[in-house]
């Protein structure tokens, strides 16, 4: 039963990975990374039950946390970099 769920999550992870490779825009990649992270959280939770030691679910918490923080980081620095790119391109045009 846990195996079935684990395999379903793995398939979803594989599909999200394809979207992360294919792009086309960076936002699609960020979305794919986000989905991938959530799926990893589920996979680890299931794996805890699969290996018979579900008391170590603290790890799942770290996964969820880091997924959130990395997602925000990507978004923040991407917005920052594109804003900066726009200003520097304007400066190049002026020169």
């Amino acid at each position: 039963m846990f195996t079935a769920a684990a395999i379903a999550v793995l398939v979803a992870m594989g599909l999200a990975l394809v979207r992360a490779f294919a792009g086309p825009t960076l936002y699609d990649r960020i979305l794919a990374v986000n989905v991938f992270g959530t799926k990893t959280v589920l996979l680890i939770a299931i794996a805890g039950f699969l290996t018979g030691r579900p008391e170590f679910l603290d790890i799942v918490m770290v996964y969820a946390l880091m997924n959130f923080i990395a997602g925000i980081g990507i978004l923040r620095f991407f917005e920052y970099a594109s804003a900066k790119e726009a200003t520097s391109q304007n400066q190049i045009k002026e020169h």
Partner: protein
Amino acid sequence: MLTHYLSWGLLVLGGFLCVSGAIGLLRFPDFFTRMHAASVTDTLAAGMIMCGLMLQAPSWIVFAKLVMILVFILLTAPTSGHALAKAALHSGMKPLLPDSKHAQGGL
């Protein structure tokens, strides 16, 4: 016995939702539809799988940890999804509408 079947059903349904959401992520035509497919099923699937696991929890501490993880996912996943969609919209990416087939801007 009943909880066993219930958790079985929740896990399988959650797994199915995971896969269908991922297929939507892969097959849909533009960013916003993909986002819709991914984030809606994602939250529901995570909830279902976590509930399925909760019914199997061997002790209260495991149950409590699963509840905390679920609350965390329910808080963060829609938030980051919202922020992402907002950032994409602000960057000039337009949803693909039936009357404007080539309106998708962006990067």
